[in-house]
């Protein structure tokens, strides 16, 4: 198809050729094309088939207000072809077809409309219940738009930004740009969001006069230039606004171009003030086959010609309800399209100049007429026009019908922001009668039509927004108000006409194939509120949301009530107002994690790193995931473990002890000098929150550890539970400032002695002791003799920057004693053999201190401390029906149940927390939480495991610790 050239409004570059494929055929488009315009230029008229009836669908609005041009593009279904820029090599496919878009084998569905009345899915499918599984399968096969392969992976880069601004303007048309310039003039920061790839809005492609000989498109370009050149206006084009929330939070997503570092980017703008200048879309004209390819809206036809250089067809009929339609007919006629007739739904009120221009061009003009039927089986061949009352008919053979009932405001952002909208009889618009605080509306969506008024209303709104941001604009605002008052106000809109035909296929919603007849059926069944009719008939629940049915539905329903008091009510809209990729919401896929200071050292030593919580940690040090050698080496020689992820804190100050007494269940006033105290924290229900050790390093100065997962919450926890007390203490989270190596095994002392400057003998530094000394005359160490893994061990806390040196030092010193690294998994087995718990493994939300057998940690004689959890601990001490922690031994030592397996008899009685084969003991052992009557030693447990099928695994409750019950090895 030849393109128009030399038009100042064109946004294409014919010199740039772009090849792409559609349904297997190769096509050529040009630079600036969207996929839809390129296909249209290649003669494609049917883009896809409709969801329910498989009717052919084509170009209708060019702004993506319905799923008509949703296509399968490069593996992604439901991409809007009219809004997607053409790129070299794109593979496009039509959706919802069996066969080709022209010959869809499922098009017989169109004849079955009688079988699918409104709500048929809800009403007919459940009786008799026996057919439901079958019917559901069939319906699901047919229903839905687009198909996605289960193995599909979304590619591309997705970004997100969270800008703050003084004024956010939605809509980059003349009103929006005027508002932006007015606010920016006062030094305010302005963000302007525009859905199309360029600024200009409705002026961009119109050639009629703005003022003193200047065409509107020139005015748009002047304004755009000014806007883009203003440094404090940040313009986002190709950015569809998708949500408006209270506090003036506006969300949008922006489609990236070739030069951007993202495919799509989510934008969340927080603004002090918002101006909504979204303008209007067209209200679809209702008549039979009103969605037949070849039927299109005014803006679509006009933009095809003026923006993309494509005359939409050869012979056109116009059926319109707004002066814009007449203006477009004249303009397209002058560009070379034959116009057979212009029918105007309005009996009067047209601009006489435009009517005269039609006459000059000998285009027949019919007042009070409209299209009532589009003929043609697949694409438009003929149109029947009728008077509004249906008294006279005329027919025209044509390939284009430009149909539009009038304008309708894009109120989505206002509705989402909870503005109050009221139907206005003069304009026929839903107009905002009450706006949320610091939100303003401007431009055509207020019913304004005169270019000067639109500009002035934008300026006025921009100044109101500036006033919200405390700019001094009172004088200017008064002036702007006066100017606005003197200009022509909102114009009378076309009234709503129910087409004077009895018809089956008059579509109120294209996405869901909802006809006027379906609405009638809903009304007959007693539905009377548009919101409910929307749900029942699905009108407006498709991806186009409000676009096609949003205005017609409430108007039709109000008209059908025949009651003048029933004023139309708009239906609700929800985010996203425009379909968006989930990938865009998900944003960039950063795997953010923490690494310990010896991360690289461990990796080099063969550590297999895994993500555990917020950390990546060494889980294994060989390919043997049972960790046999790592475990046995700790038991026989010595091992070292990176425990740097432990929470580490300093708390000090005159009231530090009071705070410790508040959160720890033990008596923290009795921490012996040179010793650690093991204690636990509970929540207010007495359930276990954390455990760890505390040392007193000086007067009112303590150092303590928490479990890894609690490192982030501990400061918050202390301060929350002391928030009323006004106590004087400080806390510092030292988790990242200190690293920890646990040196464990019978040879641990020998390794450490090589470089320590202190006596490490069992008498000088006994079990549960705490010492501070220096290694290699350099590394300051805080050492604790603990026994988490059940052997002689030293937990060495050193400043993070020394960690790598310490790591190398211990490796070297331990060489002759058989030192080896051990990882998370080995530690897990070692500590389990010792019966030591890990919070979260051996406890869950409901597990109290008593349940895990740590009740002895609770010091009950400090009620004045109001210890967190103490009241509940008292309450639950003798409580029946609780799960208790027990040790068990598998009857078959070669069979270990999976962690989390359930313990059953005729009911579920508990679950396995951790179970492993113990190489040390040659048994399969584990810890489980079971109902108290099963907790007695010697009780037989039956374990259900999915992989074992019907067969249950047998275990016996045994005392813990499994290993070294006397604890001799810790005290070596």
């Amino acid at each position, binding site marked *: 198809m030849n393109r128009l050239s030399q038009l100042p409004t064109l946004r294409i570059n014919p010199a740039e050729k772009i090849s792409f494929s559609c349904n297997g055929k190769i096509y050529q488009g040009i630079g600036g094309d969207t996929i839809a315009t390129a296909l249209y230029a290649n003669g494609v008229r049917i883009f896809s088939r409709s969801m329910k009836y498989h009717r052919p669908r084509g170009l209708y609005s060019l702004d993506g207000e319905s799923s008509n041009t949703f296509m399968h593009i490069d593996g992604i279904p439901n991409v809007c072809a009219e809004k997607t820029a053409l790129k070299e090599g794109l593979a496009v496919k039509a959706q919802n077809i069996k066969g080709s878009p022209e010959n869809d084998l499922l098009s017989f569905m169109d004849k079955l409309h009688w079988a699918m009345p409104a709500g048929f899915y809800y009403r007919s499918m459940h009786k008799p219940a026996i057919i439901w599984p079958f019917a559901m399968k069939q319906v699901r096969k047919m229903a839905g738009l687009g198909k996605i392969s289960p193995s599909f992976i979304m590619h591309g880069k997705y970004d997100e930004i*969270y800008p703050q601004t003084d004024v956010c303007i939605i809509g980059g048309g003349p009103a929006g740009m005027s508002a932006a310039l007015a606010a920016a003039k006062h030094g305010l920061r302005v963000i302007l969001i525009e859905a199309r790839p360029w600024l200009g809005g409705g002026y961009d492609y119109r050639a009629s006069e703005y003022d003193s000989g200047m065409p509107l498109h020139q005015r748009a370009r002047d304004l755009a230039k000014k806007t883009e050149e203003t440094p404090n206006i940040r313009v986002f084009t190709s950015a569809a606004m998708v949500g408006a*929330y*209270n*506090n003036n*939070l506006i969300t949008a997503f922006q489609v990236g171009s070739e030069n951007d570092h993202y495919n799509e980017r989510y934008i969340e703008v*927080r603004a002090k003030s918002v101006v909504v200048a979204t303008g209007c879309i067209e209200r679809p004209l209702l008549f039979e086959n009103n969605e037949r390819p070849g039927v299109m809206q005014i803006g679509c036809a006009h933009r095809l010609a003026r923006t993309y250089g494509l005359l939409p067809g050869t012979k056109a009929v116009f059926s319109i309800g707004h002066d814009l339609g007449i203006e477009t007919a004249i303009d397209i006629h002058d560009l070379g399209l034959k116009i057979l007739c212009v029918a105007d739904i309005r009996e009067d009120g047209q601009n006489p100049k435009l009517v005269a221009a039609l006459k000059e061009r000998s285009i027949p003009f019919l007042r009070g007429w409209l299209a009532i039927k589009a003929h043609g089986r697949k694409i438009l061949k003929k149109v029947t026009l009728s008077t509004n009352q249906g008294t006279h008919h005329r027919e025209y053979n044509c390939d284009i019908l430009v149909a539009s009932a009038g304008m309708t405001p894009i109120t989505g952002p206002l509705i989402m922001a909870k503005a109050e909208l009221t139907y206005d009889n003069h304009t026929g618009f839903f107009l905002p009668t009450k706006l949320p605080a610091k939100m303003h509306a401007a431009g055509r969506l207020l019913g304004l039509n005169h270019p000067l008024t639109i500009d002035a209303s934008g300026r006025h709104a921009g100044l109101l927004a500036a006033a919200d941001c405390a700019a001094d604009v009172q004088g200017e605002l008064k002036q702007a108000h006066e100017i606005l008052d003197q200009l022509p106000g909102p114009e009378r809109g076309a009234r709503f006409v129910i087409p004077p035909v009895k018809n089956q296929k008059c579509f109120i919603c294209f996405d869901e194939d909802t006809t006027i007849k379906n609405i009638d059926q809903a009304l007959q069944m007693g539905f009377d509120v548009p919101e409910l009719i929307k749900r029942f008939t699905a009108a407006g629940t498709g991806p186009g949301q409000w676009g096609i049915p949003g205005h017609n539905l409430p108007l039709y329903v109000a008209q059908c009530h025949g009651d003048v008091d029933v004023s139309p009510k708009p239906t609700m809209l929800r985010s996203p107002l425009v379909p968006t990729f989930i990938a865009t919401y998900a944003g960039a896929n950063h795997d953010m994690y923490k690494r310990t200071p010896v991360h690289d050292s461990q990796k080099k030593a063969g550590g297999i790193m895994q993500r555990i919580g917020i950390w990546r940690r060494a889980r294994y040090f060989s390919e043997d995931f049972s960790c046999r050698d790592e475990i046995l080496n700790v038991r026989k020689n010595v091992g070292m473990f990176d425990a740097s992820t432990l929470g580490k804190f300093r708390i000090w100050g005159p009231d530090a002890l009071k705070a410790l007494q508040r959160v720890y269940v033990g008596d923290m006033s009795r921490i012996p000098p040179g010793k650690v105290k093991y204690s636990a924290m509970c929540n*207010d*229900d007495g359930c276990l929150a954390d455990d760890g050790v505390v040392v007193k390093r000086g007067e009112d100065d303590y150092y303590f550890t928490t479990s890894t997962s609690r490192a982030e919450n501990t*400061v*918050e926890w202390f*301060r*929350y*539970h002391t*928030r*009323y*007390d006004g106590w004087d203490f400080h806390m510092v989270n030292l988790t990242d400032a200190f690293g920890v190596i646990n040196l464990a095994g019978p040879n641990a002392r020998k390794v450490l002695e090589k470089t320590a400057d202190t006596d490490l003998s069992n008498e000088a530094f006994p079990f549960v002791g705490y010492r501070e000394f220096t290694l290699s005359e350099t590394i300051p160490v805080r050492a604790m003799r603990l026994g988490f893994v059940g052997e002689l061990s030293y937990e060495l806390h050193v400043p993070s920057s020394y960690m790598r040196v310490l790591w190398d030092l211990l490796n070297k010193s331990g060489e002759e004693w058989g030192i080896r690294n051990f990882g998370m998994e080995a530690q897990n087995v070692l500590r389990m053999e010792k019966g030591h718990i890990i919070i979260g493994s051996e406890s869950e939300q409901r597990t109290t201190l008593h349940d895990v057998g740590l009740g002895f940690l609770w010091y009950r004689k400090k*009620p004045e401390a*109001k210890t967190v959890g*103490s*009241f*509940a601990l008292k*309450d639950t001490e003798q409580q029946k029906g609780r799960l208790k922690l027990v040790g068990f031994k598998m009857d078959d030592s070669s069979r270990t149940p999976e962690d989390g397996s359930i313990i059953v008899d005729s009911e579920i009685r508990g679950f396995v927390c951790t179970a492993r084969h113990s190489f040390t003991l040659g048994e399969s052992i584990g810890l489980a939480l079971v109902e108290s009557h099963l907790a007695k030693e010697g009780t037989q447990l039956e374990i259900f495991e999915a992989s074992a099928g019907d067969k249950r695994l047998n275990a016996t409750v045994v005392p813990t610790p499994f290993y070294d019950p006397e604890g001799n090895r810790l005290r070596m």
Partner: protein
Amino acid sequence: MALTITCPICGKRNGYEFRYGGVEKGPRPNEEGLTHTSWCDYVHMNECVAGIQQEWWFHRDGCGVWFTTYRDTTTNLEVEKPEVDR
């Protein structure tokens, strides 16, 4: 999140930065004389006000302070302290 919270130290910030700490219920009761019910009421029961309530927030991704502020639960917006404190 549309909610913003005004931290007494850092000023007005995005609601994402804060952790909710429940409705203001007054200090922990003394353990003496506490019953099951009164303790449970203190810990778990809430008025669920439709309107303005005073509540605790923690500036987790900021200065780490616990403070109270007022929020209208019907609009999910922070509001000024009401004239007559309920």
